[in-house]
């Protein structure tokens, strides 16, 4: 592993393009390692590579879908982007500026622009605050409304937007169902009118009709306000619907990235293909041909040598065991990148 130095990486050029095309946030060699410890087997020199050398880019007003195996590092990556976690190394360039080295005080002005909708709605809402206080807190921190009726009107509008009854604003989180709590989290994130939102499985706790409402809401926000999203989800149909581009992660790495059309029409990485082939189909009469991945789930502590997917890969060749494949375009200029020695390429 080569250790990239922060100083060596160039700042992305600010081309005078139309605002929409401009990069809002980009990472360079972004990594997060956790020391493995605490248990019987602990040895302090071992590291769990939750996110390993990731380079992604989200443009203004764009949605980047992020999919991948459970535990592959998606939430860690999302939190790193917002500096809710300390990166081990690498750069996070937000609106042209590396925010990786900034301290919490320097980050404060950025906090309003970047929001997150958490995966686990229960642990992210303060159980002692009413829904009104939870949403109003965000409004107050950034002084977006005068206290009293203006603030109340704002809270009430936000709750309506996410399909909750404003009458319920004086309830506590535990008085809501799982999906209702998730919508409180969404209302809180929307309260400060951010320009970038990390959506960490924002809809997996919701029924499909409300999922559709939230998807529509996110699409509207993007059209009206140009919000950019990193959209983490296991629902490949929804990712396909909402994203402009999609990145696929496996064991801490991004293994494939392309426009949504290319990724779904001609996936190149065998892992992506397995993933797309495993999606359950809402039709009980349709015969399914599922490629279940064989073999044990590999460990981010001792990743397999070479390509970390090779022990489970149906297309593995001898080179895959020896050397990690570079993340590169197969067809130059296509924007479709893959990290694979033997990608599935249609002629």
């Amino acid at each position, binding site marked *: 592993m080569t250790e990239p130095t922060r100083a060596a990486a160039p700042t992305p050029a600010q081309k005078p393009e139309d605002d929409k095309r401009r990069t809002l946030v980009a990472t360079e060699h972004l990594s997060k390692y956790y020391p493995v410890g*605490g*248990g019987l*087997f602990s040895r302090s020199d071992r590291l769990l590579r939750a996110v390993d050398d990731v380079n992604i880019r989200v443009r203004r007003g764009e949605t980047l879908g992020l*999919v*991948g*195996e*459970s*535990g592959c590092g998606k939430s*860690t990556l999302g939190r790193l982007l917002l500096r809710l976690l300390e990166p081990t190394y690498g750069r996070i360039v937000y609106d042209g500026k590396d925010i990786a080295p900034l301290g919490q005080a320097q980050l404060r002005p950025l906090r309003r622009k970047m929001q997150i909708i958490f*995966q*686990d709605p*229960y*642990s992210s809402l303060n159980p002692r605050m009413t829904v009104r206080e939870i949403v109003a807190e965000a409004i107050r921190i950034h002084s977006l409304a005068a206290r009293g009726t203006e603030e109340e009107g704002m809270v009430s509008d936000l709750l309506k937007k996410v*399909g909750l*009854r404003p009458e319920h604003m*004086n309830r506590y989180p535990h008085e*809501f*169902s*799982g*999906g*209702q709590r998730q919508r409180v989290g969404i209302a809180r994130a929307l309260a400060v009118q951010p320009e970038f939102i990390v959506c960490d*499985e924002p809809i997996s*706790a*919701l*029924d*499909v*009709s*409300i*999922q*559709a409402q939230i*998807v*529509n809401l996110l*699409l509207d926000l993007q059209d009206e306000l140009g919000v950019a999203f990193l959209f983490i989800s*296991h*629902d*490949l*149909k*929804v990712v*396909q*619907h909402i994203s402009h581009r999609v990145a696929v992660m496996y064991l801490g790495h991004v293994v494939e990235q392309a426009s*949504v059309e290319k990724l*779904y029409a001609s996936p190149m990485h065998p892992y992506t293909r*397995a*993933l797309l082939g*495993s*999606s*359950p*189909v*809402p*039709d*009980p*009469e349709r015969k*399914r041909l599922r490629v*279940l*991945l064989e073999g*044990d*789930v590999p*460990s*981010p*502590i001792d990743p397999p040598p070479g390509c970390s997917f090779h022990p489970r890969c149906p297309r593995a060749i001898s080179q895959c065991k020896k050397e990690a494949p570079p993340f590169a375009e197969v067809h130059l200029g296509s924007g479709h990148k893959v990290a694979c020695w033997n990608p599935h390429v249609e002629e």
Partner: protein
Amino acid sequence: MLDVRGLTTTFETQEGLLRAIDDVSFHVPEGKTLGIVGESGCGKSVTALSILRLLPDGVGAIEKGSVMLSGKELVTLPEREMRDVRGNDISMIFQEPMTSLNPVYTVGAQIEEAVALHQNVSRKQARARAIEMLRLVGIHSPEENVDAYPHQLSGGMRQRVMIAMALACEPRLLLADEPTTALDVTIQAQILELLQSLQTKLGMSTVLITHDLGVVAEYTHHVVVMYAGRVVESAPVKDLFRAPKHPYTLGLLESLPVHVEGPTPTRRTRLRTIEGIVPDLAKLPPGCRFAERCPLVIDRCRESEPALERLAGDGEDDDIPGMGSRFSRCYRAADVERPSRFAREDRT
């Protein structure tokens, strides 16, 4: 196996006493999976918690109804015996792992406890079993993660720890509340297939609560659809998807992103939704609870609530959902039709 009849559960709230579920009935045969779907907040989790009698003390209570597990009434069972039932006969996978995993104990300790409750084994055996269970649910490096604390695991890993705990005691009935929402589709398939194999092996019955209609289609035998505390439709899974008989069910099926494969011309267009919001449980209308949002509504729907009725032409003996007959709570059940673009012939 499991027979739920007229189950009604209330909550004490600021707005007064609310019926979170109202007259819920269904049957789950041995070795079968019953799916429960429905609008967020319609009472799916409360149904499961009521079966297990895990409602919040002093706030939630079963008002009436019966829950029979292999002929044993659970609603009136003394708490001491109920605890045995929870350790041995029924397991639950909770919707939000963090609410049921204890943050101060390692995941191994928590699975070992579940094992010890059920089987008379040494500590070492319990630990080995915990590691085995973690491997079964696809957790990487189980020997190391057995010593991890919940916050050191990803959302989906926590969910799998919950599943491992629930299965460790080999229950006869599994209540799985959104068991795979935090999992990617490959691991989801692996877990659901694991559940299926345990069903065959142990004759385990499962109540599977999920929003994922793909999961419903592939892994359940019979489906109950709930809306605002009521069962509004129930049918064998194929019938439900082929020809839903309640406008709410139809609305759910219609909200799915329609494209199936390949390039997507419809990408980023607005999805269909069911307009409106569920009624407030404190101010329920006199008629059908779905009337305000229903495209088929007629005057009668607003005047009186339709009963859950067995549809003509089905097994005469079935008196509650889950046994093969279809039920619908709609005056216009016969007029509900799935648009033909969903007909099977249209697809490849």
